[in-house]
């Protein structure tokens, strides 16, 4: 290898922080066995202690110290050879607490780089979530549910080493399988982990993703003003008052104005689905939502603003009516459109949509509680559909 290779791990704040750190350390320690140099670091502006917030960790491997210097005073590499996410819903986009806007999961991937995703969904579903790119890349799937591996209260599910084992396969320039296995053996002193890594190497296959494949939506952007344009005194304008909602002939209710630059929805892994026919207008969801996500409709029911919702589930917990607000796995949705407008447009179609979503609402499970649970889940999900190259 004569070039610097950059790997990023995109993860969920606090629950996957240790997992991401372990993966990046594993990469550098394995590369060290081949005489290469490396660094492992988190994106400094992120606030990974916050529950579920998207955050990043990096491993940079270089042939020598000199080559590494460019990366040693940077927050993140300009492009990555491998981007890893251990939570498939991060494929919908990454909005850091540090206010970088919504970054597509594959934004940093260089041409023909590899996106590694742990998921029980088929590859085609994952591609639909990822924003389109103008250059081709590859998608490698590792069957698995969102893992908390490395978090002290959860059992180790080997997600770290299963991802590490896949890396020599998807990027042979990074490190050989042998070095990776020896580093895993040294770092964790556990033969089972070595076996997991080797198995992952053997099973991992990469799918080609062509230019223009995926979610065509253009992520929102904003401009950063210069010092001559900014108001002095570290002051920013407050959010203005909101407006009534207009839909067809109906005008009424209240939609608060929201921060157009910071939306939070990429923190979400579950989404409330609202059955408006069941709503008793008690106001509790609207009152208790910590993020003021609910709009008051002209009918005094409460509509979810899915761009502002980070999926905490408080609304569903406080709702006194059974089946009125149900939390559903985010994987079941492809946009942030208004549920109330869909309800007003076609009540029958909406009713069957709600029924369908609620019937198919797998709770997102985190971590494993007994040996073999992982295999059961993979078998149940029927994941791992093979690759094309």
């Amino acid at each position, binding site marked *: 290898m004569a070039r610097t290779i950059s790997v990023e791990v995109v993860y969920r704040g606090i629950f996957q922080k240790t997992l991401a750190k372990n993966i990046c*350390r594993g990469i550098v320690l394995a590369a060290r066995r081949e005489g290469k140099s490396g660094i*492992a670091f988190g994106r*400094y502006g992120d606030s990974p202690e916050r529950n579920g917030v998207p955050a990043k960790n990096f491993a940079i491997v270089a042939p020598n110290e*000199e080559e590494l*210097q*460019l990366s*040693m005073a940077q927050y993140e590499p300009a492009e990555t050879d491998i981007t890893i996410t251990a939570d498939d819903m991060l494929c919908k986009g990454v909005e850091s607490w540090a206010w970088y806007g919504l970054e597509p999961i594959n934004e940093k991937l260089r041409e023909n780089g590899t996106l590694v995703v742990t998921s029980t969904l088929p590859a085609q579903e994952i591609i639909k979530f990822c924003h389109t790119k103008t250059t081709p890349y590859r998608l490698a799937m590792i069957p698995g549910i969102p893992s908390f591996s490395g978090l002290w209260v959860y059992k180790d599910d080997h997600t770290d080493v299963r991802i590490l084992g896949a890396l020599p396969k998807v990027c042979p320039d990074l490190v050989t399988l042998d070095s990776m296995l020896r580093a895993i053996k040294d770092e964790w002193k556990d033969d089972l982990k070595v076996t997991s890594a080797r198995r992952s190497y053997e099973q991992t296959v990469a799918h080609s993703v062509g230019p223009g494949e995926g979610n065509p939506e253009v992520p929102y952007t904003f401009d950063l003003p210069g010092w001559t344009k900014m108001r002095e005194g570290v002051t920013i304008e407050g959010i203005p008052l909101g407006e009534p909602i207009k839909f067809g002939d109906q005008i009424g209710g209240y939609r608060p104005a929201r921060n157009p630059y910071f939306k939070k929805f990429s923190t979400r892994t579950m989404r409330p689905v609202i059955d408006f026919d069941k709503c008793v207008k008690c106001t509790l969801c609207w009152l208790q939502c910590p993020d003021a996500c609910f709009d008051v409709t002209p009918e005094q029911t409460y509509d979810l603003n899915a761009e502002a919702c980070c999926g905490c589930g408080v609304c569903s917990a406080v709702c006194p009516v059974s089946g009125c607000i149900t939390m559903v796995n985010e994987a079941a949705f492809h946009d942030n459109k208004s549920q109330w407008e869909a309800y007003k447009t076609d009540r029958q179609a909406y009713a069957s949509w709600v029924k369908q979503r609620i019937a198919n609402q797998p709770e997102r499970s985190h971590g494993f509680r007994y040996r073999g649970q992982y295999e059961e889940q993979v078998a149940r999900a029927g994941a791992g559909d093979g690759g094309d190259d």
Partner: protein
Amino acid sequence: MDAESTTAVKVAAAEQEALISGSEAVAVASKLMDVDVITAYPIRPYDTMMQFIAKQIANGEQDAEYVVAESEHSQFEIAKHASAVGARALCGSSGVGWCYAFEAIAVTPALRLPLVAMVGNRALDDPGAFGTEHNDALAARDLGWMHVWVDTAQEALDTTLIAYRVAEDRRVLLPCAISTDGAFLTHSQSLVKIPPKSWVGEFLPPYSRGNLVLHPDNPITIAPQVNEDWLMEIRRQTDQAMRNARGVLEEAYRDFRRIFGRDYGTPFFEEYHTDDAEIVLVGMGTLSMPVRVAVRKLREEGQKVGFVRIRWFRPFDHERLGALLSRFQAVGVADRDFSMGSPYNSGVLANEVRAAVYGQPKHPPIVSFITGLGGREVTIPSVREMFDHTREAAETGTSPTDTRWIGVRA
């Protein structure tokens, strides 16, 4: 022990490599040298050091009194008092946390307490920001603290050992602040060689205050009230200690090279491609990383450029630095700090460099820059821009009368 058996011991106890950050490296150093008292109060990015020490103690690898204070002010006071009774003490902070401890920081040098503190350099809030900016540590530049800036995790570990050696020397007995750039050093793990404890033992003698120790066997009063009749003499003593530190530092680096085999050259600053350089940039901390890369690129293009990284800011080696810099056709100074309203509207370092060069017979133009504030990345194009302006000054032979901000949105 004769020379041969000493060599045998060293071979048996070879260095080990670990993947750790700069602040973790300081924590490891504290374990190697058996620091007695560690006082802590969390603030990012310094907190990575206190967390790592807490882990080492919890794992049974380190034995020390670990005191989590209720504020930085108490944190520095406790460490200061521990140092007075003869305990080797370590603390640290960042940004406004360091400022909150300022009363304790200000009184430590006169009391001749060799406290060592890691400053994880951080912008002073408001606005709330975590990124590196050197104004926090530099706020204490005139008080009698020794100040050093490091640029790698390895240097952080090694410099911590050296800092104690110099600070605890009876000729010095001054506190020392080790500045590590927030994020780039405190939150980035790189491969660090960890020396065996036996080498550290050979390098660093036990801390002994002699007749200055606060102990029932040595009844003394520390810091009684004084007026104009005493204070100037006390200041002059502290000043002498700082002057002495220059020579003691050189001794320490020489011994360090002998025992650990790592050569840092002259202790006070590091030169990069200066031998045949026509123009150079001067800076501190991890700014060195993009500058080194840019220097190599510019040299490939045939430009004779170099870099001087100031390591020890206090004591400042004005003589050797001045002599070195006066050799070049022009000198650019990149400050990761500001000193608003100062001469040339420049940063702190630029005016120190101007002062150092002024005493030389030959005065190359000096061009000052402010860059990388709040931790903004100093990019390769930014470094090129600074070299370009320095080149211009070399060609015209005149120093600009103002400071350029590099990498700021207008």
